[in-house]
């Protein structure tokens, strides 16, 4: 409609006038692009560069020796462990949630979708606090846990739980819209050809959602390894035992060990860069797959 109007009307208006009205003059383009890039440079590139500059302030020797410390190594191990548990758990949940939401109709579906997004609306500090209320010394299970000599808060299980909470929606929220858009025609075709449930899932659904799945895992993992507020509440900051990498950064920074703090921070910043590159690659492949 709009196209028809504009072609009819363009006979009355000269081409140059339309060009002038739909395209910005060069000086506007230049000014806006410069301002936007300056803003992004100040707010994004500068902090990123500062991390590496501060880490390398005393040279490469001091930088690498910061990683040789046993506390730093322990924090790296704990971060990897927390991510290795919480990411697969949320992956399994995300797939199950997307399957029942995208393939079936049931009452209360939109409420369920909202509840899945809930952890994103909760402050990280509160995400940690609620586990203290359940498993802490004065919490619901506190007495029972002491009786059985189990520790959740100020120990590794609490860190894993808090990490799982803050990364809870990532995979589900990538998969739900994707699987809803794809519908279930291919799965139904497989069913009529005699495939059973798991065969349908592994051979039809998984190949269809693999890029969305990968995208969700990348984002989930980045948040799991970088979470600070929630983990800080439940960790208790026991050196070499309950410090993840972000907590190790905080401790070293507060001790004025800036090279050490920024060295560990630079490893996390590298992880962020890798995440951004992988994310861009997956988006690009996904766009290609859709175009073909």
């Amino acid at each position: 409609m709009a196209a028809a109007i504009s072609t009819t009307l363009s006979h009355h208006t000269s081409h140059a006038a339309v060009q002038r009205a739909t395209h910005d003059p060069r000086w506007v383009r230049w000014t806006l692009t410069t301002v936007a890039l300056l803003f992004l440079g100040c707010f994004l590139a500068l902090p990123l560069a500062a991390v590496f500059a501060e880490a390398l302030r005393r040279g490469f020797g001091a930088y690498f020796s910061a990683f040789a410390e046993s506390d730093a190594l322990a924090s790296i191990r704990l971060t990897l462990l927390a991510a290795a548990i919480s990411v697969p758990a949320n992956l399994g949940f995300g797939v199950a949630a997307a399957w029942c939401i995208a393939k079936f109709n049931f009452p209360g579906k939109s409420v369920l979708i909202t509840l899945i997004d809930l952890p994103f609306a909760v402050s990280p500090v509160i995400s940690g606090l609620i586990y203290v209320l359940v498993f802490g010394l004065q919490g619901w299970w506190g007495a029972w846990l002491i009786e059985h000599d189990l520790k959740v808060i100020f120990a590794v299980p609490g860190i894993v739980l808090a990490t799982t909470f803050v990364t809870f929606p990532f995979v589900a929220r990538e998969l739900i819209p994707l699987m809803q858009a794809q519908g279930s025609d291919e799965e139904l075709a497989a069913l009529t050809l005699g495939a059973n449930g798991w065969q349908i899932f592994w051979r039809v659904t998984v190949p269809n959602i693999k890029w969305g799945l990968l995208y969700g895992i990348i984002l989930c993992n980045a948040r799991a390894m970088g979470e600070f507020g929630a983990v800080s509440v439940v960790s208790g900051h026991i050196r070499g035992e309950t410090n993840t990498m972000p907590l190790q950064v905080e401790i070293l920074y507060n001790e004025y060990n800036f090279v050490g703090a920024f060295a560990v921070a630079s490893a996390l910043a590298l992880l962020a860069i890798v995440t951004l590159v992988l994310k861009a690659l997956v988006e690009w492949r996904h766009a290609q797959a859709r175009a073909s």
Partner: protein
Amino acid sequence: MSFLRRERSVLPGFGLSLGFTLFYLGLIVLIPLSAAFIKTAGMSWDEFVAAVWSPRVIASYRLSFLASFAAASVNAVFGLLVAWVLVRYPFPGKRIVDALVDLPFALPTAVAGIALSAIYSKNGWVGQWLEPHGLKIAYTEIGVFLALTFIGLPFVVRTLQPVLEELEPELEEASASLGANRWQTVTRVILPELLPPLITGFALAFARALGEYGSVVFISGNMPMRTEITPLLIITKLEQYDYHGATALAVVMLVASFCLLLVINLLQKWSRRYYRV
């Protein structure tokens, strides 16, 4: 579970997937979250008011609210600009810049926090030029505002970008052929179209900023009554073993963010109706 099914689907796995979803959701999210409300319900009204309405707490509300609002506003203006430039103008390195916009999502907040305080402190790259002129950023309210601007940056850009990409060029051509100049086309045709996603992005950035902790604590200096945000106050109360006080504050924040979530959902519905006609 068959009573839950309105339309019968022949695909298998409904009971298993819904059962696991509800079980996991309850275990990880709903039961722990309810603990905060149940714990607060055990307090008397006077105790609750004393915990959530003391001068120090009110000062923290004011800082959290105002700094988040200012940061989200700056992000709305510059986010619109960045989204416009990324969608409309070609320039070298555009792919890299586009990927970089997501940095605040990918960079751990503690890393962002120490990097920002290193830049804006007295001896930092930017701070050494500003402090001699009497402009202190690190350990002041401005520092809090800067950190919140950093973490909220992608929200406006990422909500505007897809809408801008789908905006039909015919709309602008029609406007031009009806005699509008470029300024009129931008302000009367394009901007009204962008308003719903712009407000949505603003609300998302604002909600995120209200709960933010990691990037702020390093640059704020954490002075009571002056640069103490509400999430930090929760941690302070926890460290003093004041579980009731911490939980009451948490409930106030949870209610505020649930209300915001509701507003955001309504906004998103509004902007969808606006476009898919």
